[in-house]
């Protein structure tokens, strides 16, 4: 019989841990489960769960969002994107169009989609107009985008790809020598597609305990228990606490499609900078569907704060696990889900929005509430 969440919690509490143990997760879905189930409140005081780089919308390059906005204002173009991307702001003066949502209000044909197949359908239904699919996402999302390309896409469909790989961001933190965590919960659906082996380097090269987790409290607590116990025993390895879905080698068909279609390239992460071999780019064979080849997308070097997070926003520190969302100086006062300033408050996968949805208001929010 499967061990329940209460039993996992009791086992975690019974571990004779000495000192503080900080465990990072790198998946917005994990963070949603952790926050929703209130797991942090139930853990021993010396165990911290830190949300890390788990939100592709949050790290999508500001220049790419800017390029998507400019393309959407071309009257010929239909711009489609996952709904999360529409409210992400870029760094331009307030009188200018700052998001895809504002571009739509200004007359741009911007359409939110929930699946890459919809992009293909919209292009088929509008054969006389170029359809640009602004596709941001980690491996789990990029794989379906690629699958769609392998299903005979119409000629007028172009991809503005902002795909990113998850593990290089963790590698960057570990290589920095001061990662700020002693254990890692690896993302379950990324590992479902790419295979758990991608995360082997965490334990093998850095001697950091690691475990792949699913999205239920049971799976997350099992992974946390594994990581804590590995630390206690001084024996780091990669555990798989989501064997129902995560199998050695991942999803072979998806990986084959990814490898046949995309190159792994150095890539920019918003507010963080370039991370080596952390992005996807379309191979030259797919140039006919590459928006970067078809449209004149030039970086405007004269734009102030291009590539950065919005002014005053600490999303980059949140993404890298350096601060908790409620430690950001604008969380809950200037920046809320209704009036988001940073991308972490926009996306369903953003730690700030997740913490807000779970009822966290933070010191600043509490002060605003008290003074109202």
């Amino acid at each position, binding site marked *: 019989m499967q061990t329940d969440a209460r039993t996992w919690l009791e086992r975690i509490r019974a571990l004779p841990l000495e000192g503080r143990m900080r465990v990072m997760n790198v998946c917005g879905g994990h963070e949603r489960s952790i926050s929703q189930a209130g797991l942090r409140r139930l853990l021993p005081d010396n165990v911290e769960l830190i949300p890390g780089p788990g939100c592709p919308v949050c790290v999508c390059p500001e220049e790419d969002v800017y390029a998507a906005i400019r393309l959407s204002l071309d009257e010929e173009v239909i711009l489609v994107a996952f709904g999360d991307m529409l409210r992400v702001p870029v760094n331009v003066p307030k009188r200018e169009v700052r998001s895809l949502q504002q571009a739509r209000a200004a007359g741009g044909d911007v359409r939110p989609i929930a699946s890459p197949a919809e992009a293909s359908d919209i292009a088929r239904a509008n054969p006389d107009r170029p359809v640009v699919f602004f596709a*941001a996402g980690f491996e789990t999302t990029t794989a379906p985008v690629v699958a769609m390309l392998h*299903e005979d896409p119409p000629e007028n469909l172009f991809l503005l790809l902002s795909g990113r790989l998850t593990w290089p961001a963790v590698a960057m933190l570990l290589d920095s020598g001061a990662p700020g965590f002693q254990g890692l919960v690896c993302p379950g659906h990324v590992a479902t597609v790419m295979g758990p082996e991608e995360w082997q380097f965490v334990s093998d090269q850095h001697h950091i305990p690691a475990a792949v987790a699913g999205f239920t409290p049971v799976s997350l607590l099992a992974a946390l228990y594994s990581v804590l116990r590995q630390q206690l025993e001084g024996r780091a390895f990669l555990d798989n606490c989501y064997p129902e*879905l995560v199998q050695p080698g991942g999803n072979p068909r998806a990986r084959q499609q990814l490898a046949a279609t995309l190159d792994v390239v150095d890539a920019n992460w918003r507010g963080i900078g370039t991370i080596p071999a952390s992005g996807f780019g379309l191979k030259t064979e797919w140039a006919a569907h590459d928006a970067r080849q078809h449209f004149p997308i030039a970086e405007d070097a004269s734009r102030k704060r291009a590539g950065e997070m919005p002014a005053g926003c600490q999303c980059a520190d949140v993404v890298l696990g350096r601060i908790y969302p409620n430690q950001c100086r604008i969380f809950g006062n200037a920046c809320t889900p209704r009036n988001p300033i940073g991308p972490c408050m926009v996306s369903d996968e953003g730690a700030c929005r997740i913490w807000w949805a779970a009822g966290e208001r933070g010191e600043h929010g509490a002060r605003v509430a008290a003074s109202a």
Partner: protein
Amino acid sequence: MCLGIPMQVRSVEGFRARCEARGIERDVSLFMLPEGSVAIGDFVVVHVGYAIQTISEQESRSAWEIYDAMLAAEDALEAPPAVTAVGVGES
């Protein structure tokens, strides 16, 4: 964006399936799974309209328990602002 949702397969036609969860039906692509690996009645994890893996009914049920709570929290977020102990922070 990396959260897959368990759904049950209602019908299959080539690489296309009609899947259902919580009374809502969606067209789902099976293009990322081995050909012929999914049958009517099976459960699959669906991410952005594509099945990324098959899953047991038991695991599907466990996952939905936490997803229901997440969706309720998201719905509350989208609801009109109400004056609560903390909600005034948004005003």
